[in-house]
């Protein structure tokens, strides 16, 4: 069976005065109906641009999708004409933006905004769309939906706005829901509610979700697959369990290690990944992560690591991913934390 969404070798570049920014450079993944893929990485790792590229929303003329294919139910979105892509946007593939404070239009009533895609894609009248919007608001847990639908966004709190955004994205019952850091701008207490709501909506509508986040903790429970990105490249991709319990790439190790944990008592010391993410104009030669990688060797500075399959569904772009000796050595080094620095 072909995947709902299959992305192969996607590359999106931006032309700037300082040079070409390779925001996304060779990303591949597949997403099946009803599944959740988490895209994880630091700021500027290309997560959002990946999402925008799938929707074909990368701002031209500076941003261009230079390579790859995005197969939605077997059709390449990148080769479709604009009108067809517009028909899919919001209808089959919907997106939730990061900041609910700015992604609702301040001059429209909330109900009217949620109904807009229904009017666009389902040919509903204004009245029908508004009635449906009230149902949707109710579904996402807004109290008094009939009253609140007549409110303007500034009368909503942040959490309620994000609920409204979710209602808006789900209005046309999309096959794919892309959520670009949907909880980053929210209070921690609200974050959990919103994630729970998204999972509940997924169970109800069967939509596949692409969850973009820089917070690994967020995705641990809810993702089926995880893709880790670094400097526009896909560094590790595989089933959630494999990424969390048996990761192969040193960057993923670093990410997991930098999470605050409450099950290990180390006097509250965090382990950040040292150094800064590279500029995407001057990506380091070889493996982009080598300047920050505690295990970097000579080959890392010269050769770009290929995506090595460590199991059927799990790939890792590290030269040593398939080298059992390397992993054994790291395991020994990690047992003695001081040893990591000198390695």
């Amino acid at each position, binding site marked *: 069976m072909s995947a709902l969404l299959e992305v192969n070798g996607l590359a999106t570049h931006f032309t700037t005065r300082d040079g070409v920014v390779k925001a996304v450079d060779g990303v591949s993944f597949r997403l099946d109906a009803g599944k959740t893929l988490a895209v994880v990485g630091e700021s500027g790792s290309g997560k959002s641009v990946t999402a925008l590229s799938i929707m074909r929303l990368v701002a031209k003329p500076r941003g261009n999708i230079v390579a790859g294919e995005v197969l939605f139910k077997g059709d390449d979105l990148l080769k479709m004409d604009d009108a067809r892509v517009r028909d899919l946007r919001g209808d089959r593939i919907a997106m939730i933006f990061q900041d609910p404070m700015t992604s609702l*239009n301040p001059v429209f009533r909330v109900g009217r905004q949620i109904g807009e895609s229904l009017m666009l894609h389902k040919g509903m009248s204004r009245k029908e769309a508004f009635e449906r919007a009230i149902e949707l608001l109710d579904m996402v847990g807004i109290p008094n939906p009939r009253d609140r639908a007549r*409110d303007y966004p500034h009368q909503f709190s942040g959490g309620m706005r994000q609920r409204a955004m979710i209602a808006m994205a789900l209005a046309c019952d999309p096959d794919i829901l892309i959520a670009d850091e949907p909880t980053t701008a929210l209070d921690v207490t609200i974050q959990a509610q919103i994630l729970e709501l998204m999972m509940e909506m997924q169970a109800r509508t069967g939509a596949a979700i692409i969850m973009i986040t820089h917070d690994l903790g967020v995705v641990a429970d809810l993702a089926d697959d995880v893709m880790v990105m670094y400097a526009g490249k896909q560094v590790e991709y595989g089933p959630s369990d494999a990424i969390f319990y048996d990761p192969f790439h040193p960057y993923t190790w670093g990410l997991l290690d930098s999470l605050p944990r409450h099950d290990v008592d180390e006097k509250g010391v965090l382990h950040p990944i040292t150094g800064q993410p590279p500029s995407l104009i001057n990506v380091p030669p070889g493996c982009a992560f080598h300047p920050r990688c505690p295990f970097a060797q000579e080959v890392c500075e010269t050769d770009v690591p290929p995506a090595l399959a460590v199991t059927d569904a799990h790939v890792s772009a590290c030269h040593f991913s398939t080298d059992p000796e390397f992993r054994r050595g790291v395991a020994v080094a990690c047992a003695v934390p001081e040893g990591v620095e000198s390695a």
Partner: protein
Amino acid sequence: MTLRDPGNVTAPSRTLWGDAWRRLRKNKFAIAGLVWIVFIVAMTLSADLWVPATFGDPLAINTAPGASLAPPSLEHPFGTDKLGRDVFSRVVYGARVSLTVGVLAVSISLAIGLLLGSLSGYYGKFIDTIVMRSADVFFAFPYILFAIALIAVLGPSYRNVFIAIGILGWPSIARVFRSSILSVKENEYVDAARAMGASDLRIMVRHIMPNAIAPIIVYGTMSVGGAIITEAALSFLGMGVQPPTPSWGLMLSDAKSLMFAAPWLTIWPGFAILTTVLSFVLMGDGLRDALDVKMKD
């Protein structure tokens, strides 16, 4: 009704325009301006019903001895001019000319400016360059001289005055609207609309324009005042409304040699220009504060 956020307790109004009106009401200067404008409009609209009957036709020349240059009296509250015409009547009918020119001129500016400004702001690049450089050319000419030159070509008349002022006004409107669109365009809700599958036209008309229009309302209101001044100036110079049509600028021009002998001839039209223009500016100022979403209580 249990989960109302506190904002609603003090804000019973549920629309953005309702909110703006509530804020505008608190601004005493803006309300004074609005009251004055409404008053003038009411005067001019109802003028035909009572002004000529009570104070005499603004065009009726009275050559009877003592009828000309009569100081203010009960019969002629603002006095009479050198042709014996009632000044009050002329000021009231002059308001008609001024307001009509002001509104029509700004409408022309808005029509051209909004169209070019939105094309320029939304599409950028080539169109932007052409529109903005043409605007620069307009700005490069001294305003009043450009207006006089246009009138000289079109011929001085009531109609040509507002056409000339309207044509000269578009670059400012276009520039304000363009910059407003440029900033609104960057908002995430525009991306959200695009992600929803909205077309360019729909995004422009439904999502960008309503959010970018506030500065235009402010600027347009103030421009009416500006257009009234320009009309007065052109008429004063003999390039605007032609006699015997009553126009404030024309009345000032006629009265300038009699300024000390019959001061009421200059005081009243001058007062009318001052208060009317000031009212529009105060209104515009008030609207700017009222429509500013950042000042939401």
